[in-house]
């Protein structure tokens, strides 16, 4: 119960973070969306045994965290808590792939552990980047960017509506859950019969709400599209941001920086 509420307020917090005024927040959302997509594509394009070349990519989320004035602890905690799917599937790798491909000192490391490590790094980078994107852009601006980049307008409007009523309906659901849990003894009443009418009532209320919203919008001249009063402009800063980062991603894709640095250090030590 309290966990549900926690989750719920967490979404609000991510959006609160987007309501800041830093240079990164001021960038056009399209630039951030495109750059983040290129980032994710670059990260997942590596071979499954890659670890070292992936590491420099941390630069991008770290930069956004710093320049966007985001609390790193919060983002890290969220990454650790969510989506165990990748980790659960990845944990089979060490069991299935036991060929030794690497020796560090006296320790032999199997391919499975290396690829599992690679999955964890990918997971952290991609999930982190997506969450940071929301925190430095805000959901409404992201929807606008998607529409401008070619997503059907209908879909963008749908996203905006969904987001607007998400909080309202989740609050209603929390109230219902609380009301039910106060009336349930010995698990009686948690069954599907009560559930059906509970959810059914929520559904009917939801539909009535949609009807009211529609009437209200109709009165205000709604014609099937939403106009957003936020000017978008791709200026020099935006192109600089995009080109700069994309260049870095491409270079890092083909140059294994940690290995070069490591080799350099070894050379000097010799």
């Amino acid at each position, binding site marked *: 119960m309290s966990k549900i509420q926690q989750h719920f307020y967490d979404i609000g917090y991510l959006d609160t973070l987007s309501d800041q005024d830093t240079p990164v927040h001021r960038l056009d959302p399209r630039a951030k969306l495109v750059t983040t997509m290129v980032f994710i594509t670059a990260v997942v394009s590596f071979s499954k*045994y890659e670890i070292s070349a992936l590491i420099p990519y941390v630069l991008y989320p770290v930069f956004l965290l710093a320049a966007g004035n985001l609390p790193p602890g919060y983002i890290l905690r*969220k990454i650790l808590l969510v989506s165990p799917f990748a980790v659960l*599937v990845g944990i089979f790798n060490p069991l299935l792939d036991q060929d030794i491909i690497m020796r560090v000192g006296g320790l032999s490391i199997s391919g499975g552990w290396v*690829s599992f490590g690679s999955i964890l790094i990918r997971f952290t980078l991609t999930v982190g980047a*997506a969450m940071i994107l*929301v925190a430095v852009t805000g*959901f409404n601006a992201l929807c606008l960017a998607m529409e401008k980049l070619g997503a059907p307008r209908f879909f963008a409007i749908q996203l905006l*509506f969904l987001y*607007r009523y998400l909080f309202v309906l989740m609050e209603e659901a929390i109230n219902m859950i609380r009301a039910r849990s106060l009336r349930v003894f010995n698990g009686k009443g948690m069954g599907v019969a009560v559930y059906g009418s509970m959810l059914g009532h929520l559904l009917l209320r939801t539909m009535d709400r949609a009807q009211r919203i529609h009437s209200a919008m109709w009165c205000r001249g709604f014609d099937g599209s939403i106009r957003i009063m936020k000017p978008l402009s791709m200026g020099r800063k935006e192109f600089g941001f995009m080109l700069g980062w994309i260049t870095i991603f491409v270079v890092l894709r083909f140059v294994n920086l940690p290995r070069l640095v490591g080799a350099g250090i070894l050379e000097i030590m010799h």
Partner: protein
Amino acid sequence: MADALISPAVGGAAWAATAGLVGFSSRRLREDLDDQRVPLMGVMGAFIFAAQMINFTIPATGSSGHLGGGLILAILLGPYAAFLTLASVLTVQALFFADGGLLALGCNIFNLGFFPCFIAYPLIYRKIAGDHQIRWRVISGALIAAVVGLQLGSLGVVLETVLSGISELSFRAFLLLMQPIHLAIGLMEGIATAAVVLFVVKARPEVLEGAVRPVVREPVTLRRFAAAFLAAAVILGAGLSWFTSTHPDGLEWSISKAAGIEELRPVEENLHRSLGDLQGKTAILPDYGFKVEDHQGADGTAENGPGWPAVDVGTSVSGLLGGALTLLLAGAVGLFLRRGRTGH
């Protein structure tokens, strides 16, 4: 499906297919020009979130289930609106709950949206449940449709994961892991869906009639949908087979590929060959392990010295190209759809 387990080619291909379906569904809805749908869909998306928070317990098992969303949305809104609504729900989940990820979003929308909305609902639920008047037909229809939808969806996850080659799980092992879990989830979803539908039938039956009405113009709809799906399938197939065809030949192939890209020039020929490959592949699908033979990787690394493991150069480059190409295709589909719409 998660970003960490996906390859750019698979992610890009699924993005292209999903972008096509989203564009197609939006256009269908615009043609209906029922602007009352707009707030209804938005609020229904939020409803799915709220509904996922409420669960019920299954007697005697101690486990609990909740509504997944795809099937109930299709029943209440019709397939096109339901697909878009579900796509928006999954987008919000990807962004705020970090469920899956942005590149895997295409896969997730396809797995969780396409199968329940365009397969399970029209082909199974509607055929069995009819006009929702008979109780046992609603229950059995919801159960079967939910189970089939989720089985297909989890099959999608397995195929995408195995084709991406990041996980070591073989096709068969992963299938055995995923399908039974999703059988249970499907049954829960079926029970929850039936419970809500039965309540609505009793409390406000006109809501359901409203959903069934727009489907009357079936012949046109079906043909156009088939055409769009065919296009999506061709894109998906070309993307996937292009990628998979790099696997069986292993080291030699990837090195030759990395050396030159002259093979890419004749696009039609390449596509043709890819489709041929796909056909061959689907025929041997049951016996084919799909496992990426990467054991040669160790040797390849040793031979080629520093840099990243040589065996992966070819596949990665081709994967990147495939991803870029499919993303371009997705963009082209989007642009094309936008053109078409402004011309309306």
